[in-house]
């Protein structure tokens, strides 16, 4: 790490180290691009997250970067601009592809424009939206005006960007996304197979896809802004509504983030319960992912089988936590209530049942020549691309990228169990498909190891009556069912966070849709979308 610091300092004189524990470096915005390039050359090729923070006197951009070859390495890079009225910062999207959407998001929420970024449209809000909602001076009261017309699609196709001309002046350019006579079809927002309200504008030539332009924001609920005015126990429930298919894991991330910041020690029992719940949730999520993908490929029966078996997990959840999809089970310091006496038995019954069912799934669907013919060699994602796009999780592992947070930075009880990180190296659709079914089996193994060893003791630590997080910045990663889910928390020592941001693994998955799907067919687009298994509310937040 010291070496990296030295390297950065050699590039930029403005570099200062902030934090002792992690490497947290601040650079002047003039040197940002140079520093990032140097970092990239040094192997820091995975941009985990990019967050903008409105500090009132300046606007700060925080980069969380890691190395794909050595994922334990983790650093935070910061830069800021004091021009709050018209903030401009150089883009890093030419270095890390994943920055593309993050920077658009920063523009949408904070009005930060990125120099040389190819596409500075609003990401979530309507093109005619006024104001930048995550600025501290934005009026958050729910305003009455509900638009009556669908927003102007021409405005969506008009792509502005800012560059420097020869004299160093900033010029604004406009390009058109599609040609006039292109056959552009809207997939979504109301479409059975975009897994929510994703809106894809797809340029077609017959059956063949020429270009995809994803449109987000149809389910942008302003969770991050809402959380800024909530106390920590209050806002936990919102995390489950982010990525509702693996709600517990998201909640786990925020709980851990707050617990770590407060220095809370979690009882062992709670950690075990949380791990089992996480894995059950992962199974439920993968089952839905599998079922929906089969449905997308036209096999409704497989869909129903997947949902049928998922109900068993829902039963387990209901019995112990009291909720089906939204368990509301984890709280800061542990879990809300002790496990139900039937819990262990139910889980034990479930494991052999699901193993049997997975065999059936393989016979029914995996072995089917139609399905195989459609999936093999279709939707190739190379490892380099996966890393560049930041596509971690099952999608990244299908391309051979070792990126399981449970292995890299074990949390809860993961360090105490023996499990395999499933890796495939093909990177095509069948790899992404298989990896989910294999991960279900791996999760079953984890649960099997833990279920008999849940230690006795408290299920919840003593927590102060008012939860206050000490001032500072925190970042907590978990491996949710879709990949590397992260919480960035900036606190000023108050009851509510100053800024909170979630790193959504679904967003990067969707950003990969265009490169993966070019020159494939409509049917492939739907199938690849199913295999990437994104959840839209997690993107839109």
């Amino acid at each position, binding site marked *: 790490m010291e070496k990296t610091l030295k390297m950065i300092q050699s590039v930029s004189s403005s570099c200062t180290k902030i934090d002792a524990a992690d490497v947290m470096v601040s650079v002047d915005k003039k040197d940002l691009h140079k520093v990032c390039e140097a970092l990239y050359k040094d192997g820091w090729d995975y941009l985990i997250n990019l967050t903008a923070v409105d500090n009132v006197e300046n606007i700060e951009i925080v980069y969380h970067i890691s190395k794909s070859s050595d994922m334990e390495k983790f650093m935070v890079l910061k830069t800021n601009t004091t021009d709050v009225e018209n903030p401009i910062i150089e883009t890093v999207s030419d270095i890390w592809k994943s920055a593309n959407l993050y920077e658009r998001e920063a523009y949408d929420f904070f009005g930060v424009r990125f120099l040389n970024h190819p596409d500075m449209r609003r990401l979530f809000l309507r093109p005619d939206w006024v104001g930048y909602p995550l600025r501290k001076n934005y009026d958050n009261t729910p305003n009455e005006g509900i638009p009556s017309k669908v927003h102007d699609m021409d405005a969506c196709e008009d792509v502005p960007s800012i560059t420097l001309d020869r004299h160093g002046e900033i010029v604004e350019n406009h390009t058109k996304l599609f040609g006039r006579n292109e056959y552009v079809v809207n997939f979504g927002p109301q479409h059975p197979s975009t897994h929510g309200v994703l809106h894809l504008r797809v340029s077609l030539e017959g059956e063949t896809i020429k270009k995809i332009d994803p449109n987000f924001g149809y389910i942008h609920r302003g969770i991050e802004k809402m959380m800024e005015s909530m*106390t920590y126990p209050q806002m936990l429930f919102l995390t489950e509504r982010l990525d509702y298919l693996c709600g517990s894991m998201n909640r786990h991330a925020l709980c851990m983030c707050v617990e770590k910041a407060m220095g809370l020690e979690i009882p062992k029992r709670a950690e075990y319960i949380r791990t089992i719940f996480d894995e059950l949730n992962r199974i439920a999520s993968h089952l839905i992912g599998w079922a929906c993908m089969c449905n997308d490929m036209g096999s409704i029966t497989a869909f129903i089988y997947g949902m049928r078996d998922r109900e068993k997990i829902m039963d387990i959840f209901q019995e112990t936590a*009291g909720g089906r999809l939204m368990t*509301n089970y984890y709280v800061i310091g542990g879990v809300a209530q002790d496990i139900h006496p039937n819990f262990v038995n139910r889980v034990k019954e479930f494991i052999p049942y699901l193993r049997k069912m997975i065999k059936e799934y393989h016979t029914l669907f995996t072995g089917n020549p139609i399905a195989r013919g459609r999936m093999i060699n279709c939707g190739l994602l190379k490892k380099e691309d996966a890393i560049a796009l930041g596509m971690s999780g099952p999608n990244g592992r299908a391309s051979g990228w070792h990126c399981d947070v449970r292995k890299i930075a074990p949390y809860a009880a993961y360090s105490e169990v023996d499990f395999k990180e499933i890796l495939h190296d093909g990177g095509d659709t069948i790899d992404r498909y298989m990896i989910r079914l294999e991960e279900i089996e791996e999760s079953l193994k984890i649960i099997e190891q833990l279920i008999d060893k849940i230690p006795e003791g408290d299920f919840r630590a003593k927590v102060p009556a*008012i939860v206050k997080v000490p001032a500072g910045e925190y970042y907590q990663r978990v491996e949710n069912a879709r990949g590397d889910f992260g919480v960035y928390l900036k606190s000023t020592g108050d009851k509510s966070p100053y800024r909170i941001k979630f790193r959504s693994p679904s967003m990067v998955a969707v950003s990969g849709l265009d490169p993966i799907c070019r020159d494939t067919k409509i049917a492939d687009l739907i199938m690849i979308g199913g295999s990437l298994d994104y959840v839209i509310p997690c993107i839109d937040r």
Partner: protein
Amino acid sequence: MKKYIKDLFSGIYALLQGMYITNLNFWRPKVTEQYPEDRQTARQFERFRGELVFDMNDQNEHKCIACGLCARNCPNQSLEVITKSITTEDGKTKKVLDKFLYDLGSCTFCSVCTQSCAQKAIKWTNNFEHAVFNRSALVKQLNPEGSKAIERKPAVAAPKAAPAAGQNENQQ
């Protein structure tokens, strides 16, 4: 040519296997639960959060002392505690519960309220049959007309000592 024929037959074999699985399921007992036919008999998980109710005793008394903690802790203001002042027999004015309004339509079932209630006055029940024709029918008054709070000794009545609840903010 050999590959062509081999592919053909292995393909047909795999297809038949898939059909075998669906056939297997055709004859299996069905998992469908027949709500509403099984309305009386169906099991419900006791912890399932269906609806917030007052924990009433036989004498039509509830435990709420109208401290308003639950309403303040509710993340989206779906609880409203309306109090009124009454004069007790010994001449003191006392704040008691007038109406406890619960907006089922915006409740998120996060149970922050039940966790923060030091008196354990509210609890969850399993009832989930809530669908109505009119949105205003979802706002419910939890304390039945004519009910009153349990008379308790002054020492217990103070809402102060409740660290176990964890979530409350009554120090403020």
